[in-house]
């Protein structure tokens, strides 16, 4: 069952098109990773989901309700952490946490204390003295101590140190274990790789790829390193081979997944001494889409 269902969402600011036909689904009980370069439309999408921006076109449903018209009903079951947490300089962190929890309508005192301890926050300090990371902790604590069904987290860890990053990941996994869903927008691809069940990549206001990591990898290349007895001939003329580089006694290259069988047959003729292969990292996937866009922009595509 999908908790969030975005169909053909477009958002225009004057003449500028920020979102152009976005389709997105977050299923019950899953962690959905939302990645894309700066200015691609991640935060705009999230703010439409929250009914803070009004969609120019398309249909945005959360829990089967309309994100704009039923915003208040929806938000009783949603916890949100913005990327840029702006707080009131003259309130303390503790006061802001209580305020946020209360506004959402649920209250969990013991969980609050536990989270404050885990995130190592001093709740008696005024918000003006907090660093970016500490302000994010305030928003994260407020989010995780409410019993929401859907957590919308917009780059929640950009200011956290590695230790706190770990605490954050634990919290997300706990939430998932409890059967809740998470929409996690992030720049930190290792984090997405570690946590997310499915991923959507957005670029220039369009979702260009969506699916499980496994599915995404299937569409792409595998990194291969081989050492052979004889030099491999005609490697650069084969279909589906990219970025050949000689290294030590061997050669490094990437293979399109659908050409793998063909390529392996070819190189085995040369007497394989050593073979290493690695699945592409999310970063590879991401970079590939990103570079792809540059090529289309400048019109030099198709070199490989």
């Amino acid at each position, binding site marked *: 069952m999908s908790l969030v269902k975005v169909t053909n969402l477009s958002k225009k600011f004057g003449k500028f098109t920020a979102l152009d036909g976005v389709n997105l689904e977050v299923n019950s009980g899953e962690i959905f990773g939302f990645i894309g370069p700066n200015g691609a439309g991640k935060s705009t999408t999230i*703010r439409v989901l*929250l*009914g*803070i*921006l*009004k969609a120019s076109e398309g249909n945005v449903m959360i829990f089967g309700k309309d994100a704009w018209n039923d*915003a*208040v*009903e929806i*938000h*009783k079951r*949603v916890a*949100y952490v*913005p990327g*840029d947490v*702006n*707080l*009131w*300089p*003259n*309130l*303390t962190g*503790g*006061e*802001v*946490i*209580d*305020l*946020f929890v*209360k*506004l*959402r*309508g649920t209250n969990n005192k013991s969980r609050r204390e536990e989270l404050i301890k885990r995130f190592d926050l001093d*709740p*008696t*300090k*005024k918000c*003006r003295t907090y660093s970016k990371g500490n302000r994010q902790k305030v928003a994260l604590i407020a989010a995780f101590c409410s019993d929401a069904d859907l957590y*919308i987290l917009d780059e929640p860890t950009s200011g956290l140190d590695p230790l706190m990053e770990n605490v954050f990941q634990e919290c997300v996994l706990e939430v998932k274990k409890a059967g809740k869903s998470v929409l996690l927008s992030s720049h930190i691809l290792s984090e997405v790789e570690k946590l997310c069940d499915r991923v959507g990549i957005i670029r220039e206001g369009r979702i260009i790829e969506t699916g499980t990591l496994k599915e995404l990898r299937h569409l792409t290349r595998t990194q291969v390193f081989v050492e052979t007895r004889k030099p491999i001939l005609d490697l650069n003329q084969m279909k589906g081979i990219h970025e050949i580089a000689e290294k030590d006694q061997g050669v490094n290259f990437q293979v399109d997944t659908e050409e793998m069988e063909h390529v392996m047959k070819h190189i085995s003729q040369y007497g394989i001494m050593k073979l290493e292969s690695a699945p592409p990292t999310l970063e590879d996937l991401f970079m590939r889409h990103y570079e792809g866009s540059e090529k289309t922009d400048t019109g030099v595509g198709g070199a490989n």
Partner: protein
Amino acid sequence: MAINTIAKTSHLTRFIMRLDRIRIPLWLIGLTVFTLIVPIAYDDLYGGPESARAGLVETMANPAMIAMSGPADFDNYTIGVMTAHAMILITAVIVGIMSILLVTRHTRADEEDGRIELIRSLPVGRLSYLNASIIVLFGTSIVLALLIGFGLYALGIESMDLNGSLLYGAALGATSLFFAGVTTVFAQLSDTSRGTIGFSIFVLLGAYLFRAITDVSNEALSWISPLGWVSKADVYSSNNWWPILLMVGVSILLFVIANYLHSIRDLERGFLPSKPGRRFATPFLQSPLGLALRLQRTGIISWAVGMYVLGATYGSVLGDLESFIGDNEVFQQVLKGAEGTSLIEQFLPMLLIVITLISSIPPIMAMNKLRGEEKKGRIDHFLGKAVSRSKLMGSYLVLSVVNGFVMFSLAAFGLWSVGTSVMDEGLSLTMIYGSTMAYYPALLVMIGISILLIGFLPKFTTFIWGYFLYSFLVLYLGGLFDLSEWIGKLTPYGHVPQAPIEDVTFMPMFTLTLLAILFMAIGIAGYNRRDIE
């Protein structure tokens, strides 16, 4: 060592001038134009022989006017003396506000936002940025003094000689310098820009009100107030430069103190203590209304005290006014027209317009805070949770409406409580309170317009202040400049019956309230439909 602490000050001075290249000239041009148009208008209206101004001397030389614009040489009330009397104090207050805002921007505000940290990481001295902003303010003050000094002289009005004109300019320049000094000191003491502005404005208004009271009761005591020094310069009459030199001297002393305080403190710390806050929010805080009230608490209390003091200040001169009118035959003749009202009551409408207009500032500010929160990106915290837009805007509306009621009541009460104690026959509380509250529907219309702007044209929210300024100018100066009636009717305040001379009738109040409710409803509907920035 000493040189090192101010290394690269000249670079930073140029940098600040670059940052303020539009803001400072706008202030200077505005102040100059504001100053120069008045003597031109006066010369048109009241130029010529002394007799042309005889009636005017009578209206200006009463305690209420002295409380507002200070003492003057009434025996020799030339166009020059008249200009200086009517304008120099009020201009000095505006100049003071300019200095406070400009200096805070480049001291505590830059520090609070972490920009000074960046600058301090460069090879510049510890005191360089502070002194660069002081130098810029020095320059601004000198240019202001010269522009106004030579500008007034260039008008070629007979009673406005070069010496007096330059002194006029110098008085304003020195005021600018003085409040720059006050602000640099508070920028060291307080650890927030809000605090810096708050304390400095407090000194400014305190200086103004103190001299208002002492100018009427005991003029010698006015020497305690720096704004008293501006009147003591006696521009275009005895042209006394000493008070101005005193002002410059004290300013320099303040700059020295600020430099010292800056050199012994840590960056981003102040001297006024900031205590650890609460671990838990009080139940009261946990709603949009509670939060809005909490955020504005200090502001509301300061304004509330200010409104009471404002009312009380005007009230305190009523006694003097009474005996003054009692002794003055011209006045008694002028005011004889209306039967059944006491002489004081003739003066009240003018006082009430000023009081209610000033009391309208805090409630309008309270409403506009909603837009301020949006600009700071903090509205998402509400709308991302189970709070509807109507509830959010409604909370600010309730706060603003109650705020206005409290401010109006306190100002009226201040006026009555002090007024009644200094007058022979006393004042009727019902009369004062009723006449003040007659303006309340007009305030509601202003709040309604604010809501309309926030709901539909959020980028133009500040336009409400333009409209407010229009109302102020039209109603305050309307009498002096003999404006047509319809110009006054363009502001909601112009439709309010001028109690106690006129009867408070039901219709205008009802219409204004209805209009206000309509604006509010439409504005809330608009807010429900637009994007949040």
